[in-house]
């Protein structure tokens, strides 16, 4: 553990030159950049958003909430962190943040807001990438951060019950204490809330093994817009009684209700984890290696990630503490196995790599089962998205594409953008057919914007892909929903929204337009 602190010191020492002087208050339009970026202009202005027909917040409302929650849990000052999204692309102008401590308080807040027609944005760890968790105008921020308890973890059944504001990593730690693990892992694990993960049906790097949250979430407790508490908790994998309403709250991004509690089926944590980081010469070899991984690692395969050369190199340039095992290949794959027998798994992964090398599909790489090294290799993958936003403007797309056509769009896009783009790259969850396409340029300009959009959505739509594989729709992609869902489907989504939230107070300006 001590060595980890030393390593951190080394990282700090090497990243020091990257730190920039304190943020200037100069405003720019449409920023999507790293920590040093200036504060963005209000989204209501930049995106020309018409404020909905909601009541204005009054002192009487604030007093009411203070009485309800106690003064400490009603914030009216220093709200910047709640108003700006992780990518610094969206900036709302909320004047009030509420931090309820239990379901009843959430219910009382929503009851009041519904009666008064006050708009509300539920917020978890605020790590979303589509502006779903921040206010667009002056919505009240309903922060779930105090609902942070793991209520129970059952070692026998593997079922954990947790409040929605629990940080994913803390939840996972509690599960690990009894030999289980949360079937969800993503780069933001130290900040994101499990409730936010479920509300957005977050994906991450374990979907290939454990499937998505519709499968692992057994039940939810959600508060509806009118303050009614909908108890859909279940402690069983099997429960075919009536409509499966819990699914309405998984992935609806807080527009239909606020999740306050959930139960999740946690698999046993693996005793042995091995990671291979390999270099390949072509996307064709990537596909062959993927098929071979499915065939030969089958039941122990727990991650299959792709990083292209440009994505990797950008991260390595930005973060000097990263240490890549190999270099000089157009494609890299990170393949992880998790199993119950270290020797067995090691033999399998070595055989898989050996065969791949013999066939000339895998060129070079490394394989390790040392927990420290495994973490270091994952760090490379996790820093890739951050590398791209560190010093430039970045158009980020999260699309599902058929594997045969998976990478073509990167080349096509590179050609379309030409010298307007500094980097066009792709990485992502190959095992789930989920590509993160990134187009970087020095700063946002209309010329490149028009080359990228709506082309990327049209392209995806033509291949029957999804324009948002795991990030959701939020605010940023609602105009493009129709590329992946037809008119009838969208109409019924609207009907559902009207039914559950007739006043439209829950997370307005998101998902549907």
């Amino acid at each position, binding site marked *: 553990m001590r060595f980890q602190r030393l390593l951190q010191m080394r990282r700090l020492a090497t990243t020091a030159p990257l730190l920039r002087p304190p943020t200037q208050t100069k405003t720019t339009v449409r920023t999507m950049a790293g920590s040093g970026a200036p504060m963005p202009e209000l989204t209501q202005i930049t995106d020309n958003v018409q404020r909905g027909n909601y009541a204005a917040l009054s002192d009487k409302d604030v007093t009411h909430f203070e009485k309800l929650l106690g003064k400490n849990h009603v914030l009216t000052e220093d709200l910047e962190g709640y108003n700006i999204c992780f990518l610094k692309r969206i900036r709302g102008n909320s004047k009030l943040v509420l931090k309820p401590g239990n379901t009843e308080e959430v219910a009382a807040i929503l009851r009041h807001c519904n009666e008064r027609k006050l708009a509300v944005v539920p917020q978890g760890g605020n790590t979303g990438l589509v502006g779903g968790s921040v206010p667009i105008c002056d919505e009240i921020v309903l922060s779930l951060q105090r609902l942070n308890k793991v209520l129970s973890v059952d070692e026998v059944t593997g079922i954990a019950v947790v409040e929605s504001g629990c940080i994913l990593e803390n939840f996972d730690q509690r599960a690990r204490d009894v030999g289980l693990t949360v079937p969800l892992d993503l780069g933001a694990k130290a900040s994101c809330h499990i409730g936010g993960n479920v509300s957005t049906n977050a994906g991450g790097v374990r979907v290939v093994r454990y499937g998505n949250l519709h499968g692992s979430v057994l039940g939810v407790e959600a508060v509806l817009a009118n303050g009614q508490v909908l108890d859909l908790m279940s402690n069983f994998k099997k429960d075919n009684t009536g409509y499966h309403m819990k699914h309405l709250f998984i992935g609806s991004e807080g527009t239909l209700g606020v999740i306050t509690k959930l139960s999740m089926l946690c698999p046993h944590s693996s005793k042995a984890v091995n990671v291979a980081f390999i270099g390949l010469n072509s996307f064709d070899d990537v596909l062959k290696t993927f098929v071979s991984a499915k065939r030969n690692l089958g039941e122990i395969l727990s991650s299959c990630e792709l990083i292209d050369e440009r994505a990797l190199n950008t991260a390595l340039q930005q973060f000097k503490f990263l240490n890549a095992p190999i270099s000089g290949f157009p494609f890299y794959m990170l393949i992880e196995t998790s199993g119950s027998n270290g020797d067995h798994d090691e033999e399998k992964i070595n055989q898989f790599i050996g065969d791949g090398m013999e066939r000339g599909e895998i060129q070079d790489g490394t394989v390790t089962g040392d927990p420290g*090294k495994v973490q270091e290799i994952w760090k490379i993958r996790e820093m890739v998205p951050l590398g791209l936003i560190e010093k430039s403007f970045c158009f980020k797309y999260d699309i599902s594409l058929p594997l045969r056509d998976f990478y073509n769009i990167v080349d096509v896009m590179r050609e379309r953008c030409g010298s307007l783009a500094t980097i066009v790259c792709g990485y992502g969850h190959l095992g789930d057919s989920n590509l993160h396409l990134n187009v970087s340029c020095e700063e946002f300009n209309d010329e490149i914007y028009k080359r990228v959009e709506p082309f990327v959505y049209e392209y995806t739509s033509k291949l029957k892909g999804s324009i948002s594989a795991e990030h959701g729709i939020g605010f940023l992609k609602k105009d493009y929903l129709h590329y992946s869902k037809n008119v009838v489907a969208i109409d019924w989504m609207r009907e559902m929204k009207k039914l559950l939230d007739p006043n439209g107070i829950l997370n307005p300006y998101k998902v549907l337009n």
Partner: protein
Amino acid sequence: MARVLVGVKRVIDYAVKVRVKPDKTGVVTQGVKHSMNPFDEIAVEEAVKMKEKKLATEVIAVSVGPAQSAEVIRTAMAMGADRGVHVDVPQAEYELLQPIHISKILAKLALDEKADLVILGKQAIDDDANQTAQMTAAVLDWPQGTFCNKIEKTDAGLTITREIDGGLETIKTKIPAVLSADLRLNTPRYATLPNIMKAKKKPLKKVTAKDLGVDTTPRIEVISVEDPPVRQAGATVADVDALVAKLKEGGHI
């Protein structure tokens, strides 16, 4: 041109949470992931770099410990060491082994193998002793360069930049010498796939402490191994006055 001997210790992986055995005789090692001491990785990297720069002719990795210690020697060989020497010590005896024993073993091997340089990690992350390099130098009566931040070859020997409190110190030393690697000396490479394969065919010699004529009889007895005290939970105070009062009450100011 020199022959380099590198010490590699098998320790509980730094990312694993260390647990004390219920009977308090030591820490739990059964079923726990082990790997090469991170400072030793830095030592191996430095030796391999020397070989790549043709400053060294051969790199020999040595590990002292039970059978599984051979694994870290294989890792060192996958990183580029030419051959390995495993000094086999049974688990029970190994738990009571101290830097004094290790340094005598390393010194003997340095002479037997005709090494010109011994490079060790500055300390192992399990016992944090930070003694082995210094003692090895003493046993051999060779000069020592500890906490190396930079090692440069000169005609007369080596110029070494050392990490010291509050800065760096540069010293010159002759060869043969014993060096210890600090964190910033280099960034160790990963063992790549072809090299992992090659390492399987590199020679690994097994000897015992007895073969080397080193007495490893325990000199200590472990009375009890305890967890560090758990930090007490903090409390929130209402304002500065209350904080000052509390501090006074506790006798801190």
